């Protein structure tokens, strides 16, 4: 399909990107500003799903699948659980912002300006090399060769988090 190849694909991709990016930003703003924390959590799920879409656009299907599996499927469910278990205390009518929110906004503005400057002025050495073939196999090999130590440490971290979470959240038996 040569006549169609060059003309619209760029535009279509950019359109999709803008759509997904818009969704991410709107959802993220909803996460940090909504008064009802349950609605915030729902917006967070939407945001995570949209980020997975971004990974597909970046041709990283494995990370996209992991994003949905871990962020959307596990982390968000945990957060929803925590919200449902503590909901009665946090009255949505009470303000969602703490006393120092304006200071936070100021800091955020400074950080955003700094990061924006780096994004704008740093010369990125773009590469034209083709994407690696068979990402999944290559990822598996890398994890068990070059990155085997971080991989093992990550497993240990997960084990410790599992044990730690159980011990911390456990109700004390017999008072």
């Amino acid at each position, binding site marked *: 399909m040569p006549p169609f190849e060059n003309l619209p694909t760029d535009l279509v991709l950019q359109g999709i990107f803008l759509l997904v990016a818009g969704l991410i930003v709107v959802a993220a703003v909803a*996460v940090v500003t909504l008064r009802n924390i349950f609605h915030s959590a729902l917006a967070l799920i939407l945001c995570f799903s949209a980020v997975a879409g971004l990974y597909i656009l970046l041709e990283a299907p494995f990370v996209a699948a992991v994003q949905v599996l871990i962020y959307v499927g596990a982390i968000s469910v945990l957060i929803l659980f925590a919200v449902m278990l503590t909901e009665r205390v946090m009255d949505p009518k009470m303000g969602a912002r703490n006393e120092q929110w304006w200071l936070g906004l100021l800091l955020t503005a400074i950080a955003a300006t700094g990061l924006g400057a780096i994004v704008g002025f740093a010369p990125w050495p773009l590469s034209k090399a083709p994407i690696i073939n068979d990402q999944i196999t290559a990822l598996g090999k890398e994890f068990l060769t070059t990155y085997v130590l971080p991989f093992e440490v990550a497993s240990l971290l997960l084990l410790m988090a599992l044990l730690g979470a159980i011990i911390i959240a456990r109700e004390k038996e017999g008072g």
Partner: protein
Amino acid sequence: MSGVPLSWYLTLATVLFAIGLYGTLSRKNAVGILMGIELMLNAVNINLIAFWRFITPHLLTGQIFAVFVITVAASEVAIGLALILAIYRQKKTIDIEEIDLLKG
């Protein structure tokens, strides 16, 4: 090469990071603070994957780091929420302005 330039991804990640930072600094609810942190981690991951795609597409370092970040985020959320529930059980609140056990 994909039709979306690298700077778009970086700008989006910057915006997302800023929103997450604001959420972390301004929320009263401890769970809300955790959500802000998660947003920031997602922004970092977008950067990692974008850099992988545009600068080192022949290596997989970016993707591997992103997977590690997701792993760490998962354990962080598990521990964070366990702490929040423990505090909730003891103090009946998760408003960080009322949690001041260390105040003399």
